[in-house]
């Protein structure tokens, strides 16, 4: 069946901001879908609130709505655009839920409204509703764990009585397992079940027999309109059941099922997709297998493209999202050519001849108070994937891809860090799933603890344990060697087991460089193999490669001018999709300009690791060795290190200076080196907050005595305000320095040294922060891309703060000063490409805080706000073009004005109810949204709505302000009153407001004193639907902390700065006068 001609326009719903459980994989899938559907000649309408995505580039859709993703807003888009169809299966759970809300209201999927393509409402309901799904599976003869559904705690207690503990609790209609948990005792059950009911938008939980410890598998299935079904990939979890699949270490293909068992699972997956009724596209079916009997049960099914399908696409080379989009518009699998072989059809099952390992990356160090224990609720913020010919090679590559200081699975550091634990302790530790479990397991095996004992503790399959044991045996073997004793065989053997040069160096007591030279002298070099979907059965031209240590290298040399772009590795807080956006744009810009582009990255979620984004893709860890190997193999003209965040920037010094594109490594260092930087600012006469650098506590004390408290303390060479703190006294300073110098997680990342000192600055309280992104070319022309004024005052990390383009409160001449300072700094640093400069404005005094001659997190936001493709322009400038040339070429245009764009951060606190959601200098947001409209208030309201904290139009606001914020609180309270909201306040705040004639409806006592109703009770029962709580420095935090945690647990919007409260009040004022309207980015960008 060919392309459908009865529809001509299609609305794609995106997935919104990056949150835990829903990351850039949906930018990858959405971007592919947009591309394919436009290629097919459809008018593509896109809705997504996330400005950092590739898909929201105005080039990718005919109409791009960067608008909040709520059903109400999407309904406005539908009303305005009248699409023929809605494709809801490529935007994660967000898109699916919105589609269901629209369907329930008769706005899509019923006659006279846009058709739902990909999956219809009935199929979505069958897969998503736990009870319906279970019944459907039983109906077709598949086993499911025993379970029952509950909507209240009373029902829940009856169900658990029948099933018996332990049980697993899964809320309906949630993503990434939010609110899910295992309960082994009655007390745990009460807690987990009530959390689950709160997390489910329809207050429904499934209580299920726990099968923790069983083996866990996933199959990726595709189906077309003619009911042809194929399995794209099988995935086996190294972590047994009990850990969310997003938090599990996973391997593709499956390793430990016989063909008989595998085919049984394959049949079940196909029956499942047919019964659920996903008409076209991809689905993910999860299974658990009892290792003792082989019994298989179906766990769940996602009737849409998922995180696992992104992984499966990258693992096999089969572009699931692209295919899903084509199938949705009527094609059948046999009508679509296999993208990779070109000669064979897509109606086949990919086979691979390598092993893929995915390891998640967590951010517990940024979330003090969180348990760090993995469970059925996803907590990781990113993942690294690796490809090796064998599991041993693959898992070692994945460990170093994480960029958490591992040189492989077993290295000197992991051994010494666990040295104080006895075997028995380690066995107990590895029984509890944590991010460190694999390293603990490896250490036990290295110490000679039997595979059986380790298996009994951690339940990881024997096969995986034996593979790890092989790595341990090799480690033992290497410890008996010196670098001189290596022959070619010994070196090749270690390399084939995935040992990195650095890891070998640590074991034999040599430097990484010595190992590298020895290895090269022995002629042991990596070979690059191709990912081709067919295990070499057919000729393939795919430019998708991975390194391994075999006989034959498949990469053919070309004689075009090549540029390597180093990507940003696994997502983490502070370094995410924004940098992938920049890398992808660099590749696009350079391809358009005739260069051959080569991408190196290891993040499977991204657009950059799509094999057709660049001319070639190397799926490799971003370490010195792996990157130098690719450089040796490709011999590029230039290497781009400044677009992927801190990851590639750290490698700048390792690469031949002549190869680094754009700003030199020396200039990058000049901006980081405090002494050079101070001198530069002095010479330019640009004021800085007073401060200095310290390596020891004594030095730090001295600086604080000079500049006075409070001070801002931050380590050098980190991103996202890692370990950044505002310090009010000497005790606190001592604690902070101890953490930085070794004990804490940052110590593990390198500690302190003369090269990596701590920066200490006088903290400018209540200053306005300003961010500037600019580009300078080699002629010295500087382009100011955007000046962003932060909503939250200095002290809140810029990544966690809302900001606006253009600046809203700064006088025009202050902005002019900021622009001049930026140009002068760029000039002095001899920047070639992007630079980001941060300023703090106190009154009319402009201080420079720091400058970073690289792409910043805000580059995509600025591009979407102004219509100037900053990343592309910067890339061309790095390769030698001038801004003037790019203007003539048409790539560079003037910014569009006449609207306001607000970026708002999205924070992960609802997943970590034990963590205080107050904002601070350490960045903790996982993603961002943009609101764009005619005025600041309207844009801010949209941004808040998009970020999931809708400003209330009715109900009760709770105000609890510290003394400094009380004056501004008067304004906030008055505005809210004017909008008809009632107000609750703490005694102090209420008394203050009363003095200025503002009535408070309820005065609430201290939480700690527990007399009468507290704010927490009113938050829990839904009376209070908006919280303004500003922390009181380090002393009075506890009461406020409990209130903020309660708000995040009950999903009540909570702002922790008075500036945000003022913005919210302004937003309310502007939106109540005129309802929200939607407009495309293309319209905003019209000149």
């Amino acid at each position, binding site marked *: 069946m060919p392309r459908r001609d009865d529809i001509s326009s299609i609305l794609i719903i995106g997935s919104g901001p990056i949150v835990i459980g829903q990351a850039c994989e949906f930018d990858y899938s959405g971007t592919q879908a947009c591309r394919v559907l436009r290629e097919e000649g459809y008018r593509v309408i896109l809705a997504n609130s996330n400005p950092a995505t590739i898909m929201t580039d105005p080039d990718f859709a005919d109409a791009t709505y960067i608008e909040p993703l709520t059903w109400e807003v999407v309904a406005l888009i539908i009303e305005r655009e009248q699409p023929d169809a809605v494709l809801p299966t490529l935007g994660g759970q967000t898109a699916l839920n919105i589609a269901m809300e629209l369907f329930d209201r008769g706005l899509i999927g019923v006659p006279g409204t846009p058709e739902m393509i990909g999956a219809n409402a009935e199929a979505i309901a069958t897969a998503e509703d736990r009870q319906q799904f279970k019944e459907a599976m039983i109906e077709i003869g598949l086993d499911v764990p025993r379970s029952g559904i509950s909507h209240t705690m009373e029902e829940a207690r009856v169900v658990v009585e029948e099933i018996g503990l332990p049980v697993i609790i899964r809320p309906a209609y949630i993503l990434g397992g939010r609110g899910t948990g295992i309960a082994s005792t009655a007390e745990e059950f009460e807690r987990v079940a009530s959390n689950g009911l709160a997390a489910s938008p329809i207050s429904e939980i499934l209580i299920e027999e726990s099968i923790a410890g069983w083996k866990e598998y996933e199959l990726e299935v595709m189906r077309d309109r003619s009911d042809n079904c*194929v399995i794209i990939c099988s995935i086996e979890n190294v972590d047994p059941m009990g850990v969310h699949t997003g938090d599990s270490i996973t391997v593709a293909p499956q*390793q430990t099922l016989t063909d008989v068992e*595998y085919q049984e699972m394959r049949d079940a997956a196909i029956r499942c997709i047919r019964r659920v009724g996903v008409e076209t596209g991809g689905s993910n079916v999860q299974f658990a297998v009892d290792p003792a009997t*082989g019994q298989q049960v179906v766990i769940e099914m996602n009737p849409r493209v998922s995180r696992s399908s992104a992984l499966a696409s990258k693992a096999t080379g089969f572009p699931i999202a692209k295919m899903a989009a084509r199938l949705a518009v009527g094609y059948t699998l046999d009508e679509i050519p296999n993208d990779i072989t070109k000669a064979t059809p897509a109606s*086949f099952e990919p086979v691979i001849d390598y092993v893929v390992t995915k390891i998640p990356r967590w951010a517990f160090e940024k979330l003090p108070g969180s348990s760090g224990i993995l469970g059925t609720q996803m907590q990781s913020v990113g993942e690294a994937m690796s490809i090796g010919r064998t599991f041993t090679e693959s898992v070692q590559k994945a460990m170093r891809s994480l960029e958490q200081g591992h040189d492989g699975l077993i290295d000197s550091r992991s051994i010494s860090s666990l040295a104080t634990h006895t075997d028995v302790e380690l066995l107990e530790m590895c029984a509890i799933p944590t991010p460190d479990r694999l390293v603990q397991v490896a250490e036990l095996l290295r110490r000679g603890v039997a595979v059986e004992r380790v298996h009994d503790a951690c339940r990881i399959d024997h096969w995986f344990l034996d593979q790890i044991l092989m790595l341990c045996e090799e480690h033992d073997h290497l410890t008996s060697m010196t670098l001189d004793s290596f022959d070619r065989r010994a070196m090749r053997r270690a390399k084939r087991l995935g040992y990195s040069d650095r890891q070998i160096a640590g074991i034999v007591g040599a430097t990484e460089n010595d190992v590298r030279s020895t290895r090269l002298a022995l002629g042991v070099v990596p070979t690059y193999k191709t990912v081709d979907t*067919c295990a070499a*059965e057919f000729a393939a031209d795919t430019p998708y490669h991975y390194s391994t240590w075999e006989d034959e290298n498949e990469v053919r040399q070309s004689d075009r001018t090549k540029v390597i772009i180093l990507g940003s590795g696994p997502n983490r807080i502070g370094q995410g999709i924004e940098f992938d956006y920049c890398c992808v744009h660099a590749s696009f810009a350079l391809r358009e300009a005739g260069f051959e582009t080569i991408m190196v990255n290891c993040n499977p979620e991204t657009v950059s690791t799509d094999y057709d984004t660049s001319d070639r893709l190397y799926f490799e860890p971003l370490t010195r060795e792996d990157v130098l190997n690719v450089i040796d193999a490709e011999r590029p003209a230039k290497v781009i290190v400044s677009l992927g965040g801190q990851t590639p920037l750290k490698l700048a010094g390792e690469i031949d200076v002549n190869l680094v594109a754009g700003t030199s490594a020396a200039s990058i260092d000049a901006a980081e080196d405090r002494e050079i930087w101070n001198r530069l600012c002095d010479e330019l006469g640009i004021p800085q907050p007073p401060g200095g650098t310290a390596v020891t506590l004594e030095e730090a004390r001295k600086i604080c005595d000079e500049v006075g408290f409070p001070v801002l303390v931050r380590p050098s060479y980190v991103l996202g305000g890692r370990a950044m703190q505002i310090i009010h006294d000497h005790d606190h300073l001592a604690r902070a320095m101890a953490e930085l110098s070794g004990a804490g997680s940052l110590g593990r990342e390198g500690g302190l040294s003369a090269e990596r000192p701590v920066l200490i600055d006088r903290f400018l309280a209540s200053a306005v922060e300003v961010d500037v992104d600019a580009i300078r070319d080699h002629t010295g022309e500087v382009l100011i891309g955007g000046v962003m004024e932060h909503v939250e005052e200095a002290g809140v990390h810029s990544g966690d703060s809302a900001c606006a383009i253009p600046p809203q409160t700064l006088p025009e001449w202050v902005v002019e000063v900021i622009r001049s300072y930026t140009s002068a700094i760029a000039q002095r640093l001899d920047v070639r490409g992007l630079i980001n400069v941060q300023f703090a404005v106190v009154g009319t005094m402009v201080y420079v805080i720091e400058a970073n001659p690289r792409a910043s997190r805000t580059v995509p936001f600025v591009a979407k706000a102004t219509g100037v493709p900053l990343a592309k322009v910067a890339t061309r400038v790095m390769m030698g073009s001038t801004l003037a040339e790019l203007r003539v070429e048409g790539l560079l245009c003037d910014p569009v004005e006449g609207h306001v764009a607000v970026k708002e951060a999205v924070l992960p606190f609802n997943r970590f109810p034990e963590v205080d959601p107050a904002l601070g200098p350490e960045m903790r947001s996982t993603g961002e949204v943009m609101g764009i409209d005619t005025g600041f208030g309207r844009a801010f309201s949209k941004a808040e709505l998009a970020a999931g904290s809708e400003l209330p139009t009715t109900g009760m606001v709770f105000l609890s302000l510290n003394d400094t914020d009380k004056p501004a609180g008067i304004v906030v309270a008055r505005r809210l009153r004017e909008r008809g909201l009632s107000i609750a306040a703490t005694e102090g705040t209420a008394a203050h407001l009363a003095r200025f004639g503002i009535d408070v409806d309820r005065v609430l006592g201290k939480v700690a004193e527990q007399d009468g109703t507290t704010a927490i009770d009113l938050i829990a029962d839904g009376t209070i639907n908006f919280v303004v709580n500003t922390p009181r420095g380090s002393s009075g935090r506890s009461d406020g902390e409990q209130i903020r945690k309660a708000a995040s647990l009950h999903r009540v919007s909570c702002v922790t700065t008075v500036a945000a409260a003022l913005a919210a009040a302004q937003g309310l004022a502007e939106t109540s006068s005129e309802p929200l309207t939607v407009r495309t980015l293309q319209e905003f960008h019209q000149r």
Partner: protein
Amino acid sequence: MSSGQIRDGALVLADGSVFEGELIGAEHVVASGEVVFNTALSGYQEIITDPSYAGQLITFTYPHIGNYGVNATDAESRGVFCRGVIVRELARRPSNYRSEQGLGEYLASQGLAGIAGIDTRRLTRLIRSQGAIPGAFGGLSESELLVRAQQESGTDGVDLVSTVTTTDSYTVGSGHRRIVALDFGIKTTILRHLGSLGTVEVVPASTSASDVLAREPDGVFLSNGPGDPGMLDSVSREVAQLVGAVPLFGICLGHQLLGRAIGASTVKLPFGHHGGNHPVKDLTTNRIEITSQNHNFAVDADSFTGLERDVHMTHVNLNDGVCEGLEVRGAQCFSVQHHPEAGPGPHDSIYLFDRFAALMDAQRSSGKAVR
């Protein structure tokens, strides 16, 4: 397995290519044969025990082989008929509740040699571009191995069926339908499926048509098997006498023999189809089946025109257009090139056994010879 036990070895191909590796499985054996590859991700035991691989060295493209061990139920025949296995990595500790033995031990117990540590992707690419090629590995010098490899004639023009067929007839299954299965190297899984349809008498490949018909079967099954169908003209002649006399169902070599029996020709493919992921379209229903494949020869569908009987291609391989199935209209005969029984591989084509049963039942109720 400590490093002390590693036996270095090499695989040498007839074109002189050398692959370094470590010898596994049976010791003191030099293996030689035609090198083919199989892309299946699981099912190594079924593949190694499939008699259709007689005379061949099997390269597994998936690097980890042996992960779930070996068990008695998954064997496709009474032993091994391939000449050796070539892998990247042999699992030393199997893990599966069904496992009874490690693959390495099993190979040794069967006297089958293997070689591990091979860059199997390089080998596969070489076979893909040059075609199936003879090779040899074992504890000899590279030059000795080269000689062995060059002495191998491959599978063209060799009758391998006589080395794998049963010597005596035997019966499996139960039920009212009577099926005679001509054993050219029949797989256990096929017998299991046929056995669920009726009582199956398995007879040697050399059984004559009259002998077959004397057993008054409701249907005759032509099994899979190794090698060149062109070497089995005596068999094709007997099959020709069965066409029209009794419902016939053929799989793999059985399909090729049916083709030759009705006058179609067979050709050798450059490197064959060996794997579990080939898309085949049923031209009657237009549905796509993902199929299990293992053959080097194929029926040439272009040779159907002008045949005495009304022969149609019923299934086609979507990767390369190779004929995957044929039917002889009016004669109750059909056959497929791929393996509907799986073992290993997907079950998408299992319906073909039901089709065979339906043919037999229709024939029985009509109570007369087909033509």
